[in-house]
């Protein structure tokens, strides 16, 4: 203890104390933070289960029969695909008001999501959840997918799906971590600001081609670090920070008097 006390005026002492305080606070929060409410789970996708889940989590905004309120639109006819997309990405249930509902850690697990989707699908015919084969990128043509992506998608989501800005604080999210199924479903159902790309506009095969294109992007860049694939602005930023930084550092070293 004496040794510790002797070092209490060390110049790093405040840093150490701060780190300790952060660790303690974080630990306490992790232990005591409330977890989201979980409704009763059933082992099979069940319209009844779905209805109960709906009443508990969705009806406040979407109405008791999903007919819509002033807060939220009607879900009659949106189809299982829309529900699967919104709930599996955690966008729904929406927890906070903002320019748009953002993806967050999902609140419902696979079975609950399936139950909800089944319930909403039962309310009115709408797009169904695609099969695994429909969304399998390895069966798609990435070249055709790219041609479609750059005409229909790149203006919002960026040339390789790194995301982009919309007006008034809305944005098109990056697609790097989106599942193949959700890419398909988003195109099909047109969530929030995104337009609807139904199967007549972009056929199921074309949708799969787009998925194949996005899968190609997982390989990164042939030129090294992607730097976020954000284009010339980030390239300019790194040119200044790394390029000019290193070079001016070198110049300072060259100009300094040797000891």
């Amino acid at each position: 203890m004496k040794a510790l006390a002797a070092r209490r005026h060390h110049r790093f002492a405040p840093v150490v104390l701060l780190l300790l305080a952060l660790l303690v606070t974080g630990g306490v929060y992790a232990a005591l933070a409330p977890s989201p409410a979980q409704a009763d789970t059933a082992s099979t996708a069940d319209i009844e289960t779905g209805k109960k889940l709906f009443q508990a989590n969705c009806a406040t905004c979407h109405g008791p029969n999903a007919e819509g309120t002033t807060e939220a639109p009607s879900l009659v006819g949106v189809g299982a695909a829309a529900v699967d997309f919104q709930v599996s990405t955690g966008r729904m249930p929406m927890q906070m008001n903002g320019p748009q509902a953002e993806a967050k850690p999902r609140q419902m697990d696979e079975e609950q999501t399936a139950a909800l989707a089944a319930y909403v699908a039962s309310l009115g015919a709408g797009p169904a959840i695609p099969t695994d084969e429909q969304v399998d990128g390895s069966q798609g043509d990435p070249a055709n997918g790219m041609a479609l992506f750059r005409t229909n998608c790149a203006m919002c989501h960026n040339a390789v799906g790194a995301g982009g800005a919309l007006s008034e604080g809305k944005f098109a999210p990056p697609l790097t971590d989106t599942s193949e199924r959700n890419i398909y479903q988003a195109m099909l159902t047109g969530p929030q600001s995104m337009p609807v790309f139904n199967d007549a506009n972009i056929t199921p095969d074309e949708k799969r081609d787009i998925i194949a294109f996005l899968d190609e992007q997982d390989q990164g860049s042939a030129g090294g670090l992607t730097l976020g694939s954000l284009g010339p602005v980030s390239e300019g930023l790194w040119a200044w920070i790394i390029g000019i930084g290193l070079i001016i550092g070198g110049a300072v070293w060259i100009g300094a008097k040797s000891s």
Partner: protein
Amino acid sequence: MSTTTTPPTAAEPTTVIGKSADYLDQRTKVGVLAKQLVRKVFPDHWSFMLGEIALFSFVVLLISGVFLAMFFDPSMALTTHHGAPATMDGQLMSVAFSSTLDMSFDVRGGLLMRQIHHWSALIFVAGIVVHMMRVFFTGAFRKPRELNWLVGTMLLILSLLAGFSGYSLPDDVLSGNGLRITDGVIKSIPIIGSYLSWFVFGGEFPGEHIIPRLFTVHILLVPALILALIGVHLFLMVLNKHTQYPGGGRTDKNVVGYPAVPAFATKMGGNFFIIFGVLALMGGTMAINNVWNYGPYDPSPVSAGAQPDWYMLFLEGSLRLMPGQAEIVTWGDYTLSLNILVPAVIIPGLLFTFLFVYPFVEAKVTGDHREHHVLDRPRNVPTRTGLGVAFLTAFIILALAGSNDLIATHFALSINTITWVFRVLFFVGPVFAFWVTKRICLGLQRKDRELVLHGHETGRIVRFANGEYIEVHRPLDEQERWLRVNYEARRPLEVEPATDARGVKRKGYKQDKRWQKLSRFFYEDRVEPVTPAELAAAHAHGEHDELEPAHDTPELVSGSGNVEREH
């Protein structure tokens, strides 16, 4: 019969180098030139190497550019691409784009060279900017170097042209949309706009002429001009000799430094390799301009994050900030697109005019026609430094405005709010930056005065027998003091009276008065350097504060009662 006469006193050269030099000299009198240059003295400071960043990255651009020119085919004819990458296989595209893909994926080292070339271009313009900043803030543009400043500013403009023409060559969607915007700007020019657009593109946009034309501009016309101007720039620099920072022994009549051969030349050569090394490292590890992600140019697609390279962002930003209401229809049903002319023609025009005329304006407001070879410390010229910072602030705000969509996504803000904030900041920011910078400079000058008058604080407290405490100050040594007093605090211009002795009004008085007003803006607020008399007075107040420089033990002197601490 011919006789060869050798100079009676010159010894015969024995080494290979000696013999070659002799051979050359007997035919070109190169000895005269060598005499001037070999041991020429250059001052040594890291900030003098910023111009080299631009120079050496230009050399790298030439080297990598030759490699690229061996493989690039600037034709806009359409072809079906076969080969890598998978996302482009079987697609219809221009030959220019296809050759770029082949160069990147099928030629060993091709992608490396493309990336080195593009990073070098970004660093080239950045190097020009930092070099220009150093020259501006230290006043190296004053007589006799005004012409070199003009040459340098033209080099800046040419570098922008080189970059723009270069990144448009692969004919991809991103740079193609940049060309479309350029066409829109050209069309907005009154009277001749549509004809100028037809001229540039050889027809309607995009036509099939623009890429080959840009190729000629990019590898022939612009580099030739740049090389010629670099030649003039370096020639003038060698002729006028380099400037030097103030310090002991450094005057307007000498240069203090190291001889060109060997130390200075070796450092310069080393710097070239280091800069080239950084560019090679960046080119090999950091992806840039992966055109296959944008796709071959087609008028239909566009991607989020549609911006030009960083040095054009100021134009992009000013286009984004301008409100649209400014387009008016004139008498006669003609469309005057002020919403495009103001941001794309007038604002850049103002910015570049400031750069071009500044040395002459400053010379006029100081009334100073002497040569200057000793640089200014930026704090000693507060208004100039403030104006420079204000200019940079405007430029940076425009560049940030050009990146507003990326700012919106990364900081979760509304792009509309960001645009409005920058609209206001564009006017308020530079004024505020000027004021803050000027005050900081004046404050630093006052701090220097205090330091000269009272010396360094040693942190050592001495208690006298009568109970008085003082902090011991160590006076500055000669070199430290000289650095802080060797400047001239300029005074505002004085003008001759409006009427002469006989009461006749003098022609040109009004103009002189205007220049005087501007001169007051520059030099009314100033801090004079310390004079020996003031230093003596300060010493008289606090003798016992002093120590002999470099002595270890203080001499304890009895206190003298109340001591005035202020000067």
